């Protein structure tokens, strides 16, 4: 009875989670947290952690695009900002708990300001997408220009193109002498993805989430029903910004290193590709998308077959032209059709006269 699972994955709207879904989450958590770390070596765990770290960014994107109907091309702005905020404040303060929180909260504040202007300005599709892209591009340029020795925050040189090496590892809040090692980062990233996944699913099933999905479907109608769609959209924008900031913070912790590439065009394109390949109107799809694309780029890198950007471009064009729904919904629909007997007395189908 697998289709129960896929029904949850493929439902675009905020449906209340079923018991089967909760069982599925617990099973996956057990698999990832108990079974996998025991079977994999540290190198594999390191490779796997980054998938979960980036999955947070993908979740932020699909929440914003797939559920709220706002196609932001620049979630990388909050991703990069989170990373830089964590790195700079951790290196200045010497502790990591407060910087970790700042790495989430400052991008949220930035998203609030940016969101006020572009959501309340009612920027429509193209305008919204392009402005978000330009914001991340300009941030990228600004950070790249900070290579001189005069660009210092506290004791930390921003380093321009070269980024900041030696970002401190995360300390355990109640025991600052211990820092998270590779396996610790792995556990933390898996737990964060699970929490984000369950949290977003519950948020989407709440009143807030239902209004958001309504805004995606028909903004004018929601407004006529008495809601202010801009408040809901701004809320979603800020939540997504915080999630992207969290992802950036974890990325800095994972790699002990940050560089302006976090804001760059290629990263911004990758975020879109993960989500469109996995299926934008699902929450599990983007996570699968990150895994697939990350695996593909690493594999292409080791094969030395030319350009990764070339392949990503082909994947993006093909996804837009041929597979609009994405992988997970397509698979889900296929499985549904295979496992469920076709209904003959379909009430929607009228008999021919």
């Amino acid at each position, binding site marked *: 009875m697998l289709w129960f699972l896929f029904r949850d994955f493929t439902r675009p709207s905020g449906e209340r989670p079923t018991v089967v879904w909760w069982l599925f989450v617990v099973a996956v958590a057990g698999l990832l947290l108990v079974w996998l770390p025991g079977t994999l070596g540290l190198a594999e765990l390191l490779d796997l952690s980054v998938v979960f770290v980036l999955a947070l960014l993908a979740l932020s994107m699909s929440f914003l695009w797939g559920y709220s109907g706002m*196609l932001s*091309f620049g979630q990388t702005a909050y991703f990069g900002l989170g990373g830089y905020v964590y790195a700079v404040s951790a290196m200045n303060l010497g502790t990591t708990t407060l910087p970790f929180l700042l790495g989430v909260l400052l991008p949220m504040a930035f998203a609030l300001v*940016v969101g006020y*202007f*572009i959501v*309340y*300005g*009612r*920027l*429509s*599709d*193209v*305008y919204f*997408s*392009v*402005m978000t*892209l*330009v*914001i991340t*591009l*300009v941030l990228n*340029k*600004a950070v*790249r*220009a900070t290579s001189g020795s005069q660009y210092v925050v506290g004791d930390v040189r921003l380093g321009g193109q070269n980024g900041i090496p030696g970002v401190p590892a995360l300390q355990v809040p109640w025991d600052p002498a211990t820092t998270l090692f590779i396996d610790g980062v792995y556990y933390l990233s898996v737990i964060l993805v699970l929490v984000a996944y369950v949290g977003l699913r519950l948020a989407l099933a709440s009143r807030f989430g239902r209004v958001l999905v309504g805004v995606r479907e028909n903004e004018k109608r929601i407004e006529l029903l008495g809601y202010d769609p801009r408040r809901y959209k701004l809320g979603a924008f800020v939540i997504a910004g915080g999630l992207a900031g969290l992802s950036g913070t974890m990325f800095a912790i994972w790699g002990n290193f940050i560089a302006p590439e976090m804001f760059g*065009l*290629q990263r911004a*394109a990758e975020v*879109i590709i993960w989500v*469109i390949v996995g299926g934008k109107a699902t929450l599990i799809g983007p996570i699968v998308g990150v895994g697939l694309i990350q695996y593909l780029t690493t594999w292409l890198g080791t094969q030395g077959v*030319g*350009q*990764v*950007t*070339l*392949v*990503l*471009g*082909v*994947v*993006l*064009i*093909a*996804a*837009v*032209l041929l597979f*609009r729904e994405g992988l997970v919904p397509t698979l889900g629909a296929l499985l549904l059709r295979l496992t469920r007997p076709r209904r003959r007395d379909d009430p929607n189908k009228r008999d021919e006269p």
Partner: protein
Amino acid sequence: MDTVFTYLYQVGFAVSILVLISLGLALIFGMMKVINLAQGEFLMLGAYFCVLTSNMGAPLWIAIPVAGILVGLFGVVVERTVIQWLYGRVLDTLLATWGVSLLMIGIVTTVAGPQSHSISSSVGRVVVGGFVMPGWSMVIIAAAVLMLLATYLILRFTNLGLIVRGTMQNPQMARALGTNTNMIYMLTFGFGSALTGLAGALLVPLFGASPTMGGLYIGKAFIAVISGGPLPLIGTMSASGLYGSIDGVMSYLFSPVLGEIIVLLVAIVMLRLLPSGVTGGMRKGI
């Protein structure tokens, strides 16, 4: 006197660059309400075609138009193979052109390598009073004016221009009157691409050609077109005039990066006030 000249030159040059890189984009946007995210790579392709033709021995004043024509043809190919299937799906078009952009960076890097290519122009320096300007900047300013003028003349006084303007204002009516609007879309895309290719080629003597050069310009071009709004000529001129002046002065006084940041901030505030651009409220005009 010299300071006045310096500022005039800085502003004129910044405005001209902005006009060059955004005019083709604005035409496509005005016609199809779509931003071509591969704009930067069309510029890059123009630059590469220019380097290629001039390496084959052609003088610069031939290589530049040739590059424009080749990029225009390339634009028609992209329109036929990718974009024509996506009319009416605005966001999908943006995504597909982003795919085209990545693809083009990948192909050019594979074929020509990641390094930068440059050619030098034979135009020397221009001296006004005690102030020396690179001659090629004058060429760029002249080219921007010429391109605006040519586009205006074509749109305003030719038969084809009339049909194009009609299709921009009301595609349904144009179709009802027997215009093949798909053909007009294709031609506009090709013409916009040709202008962009021309711009890319014109930039080569100053900045050279490299696979990722597009990324340097698209931010400004997108801002200009988005704040310009749906009317390509008035929009480009007003937005380029405003942002180019800010950019020119700020870059001269502080740094180019600060100039771009201030342009972005001004644009964000402006879009809060005029969400569909300067020309969003205008119904007629080009």
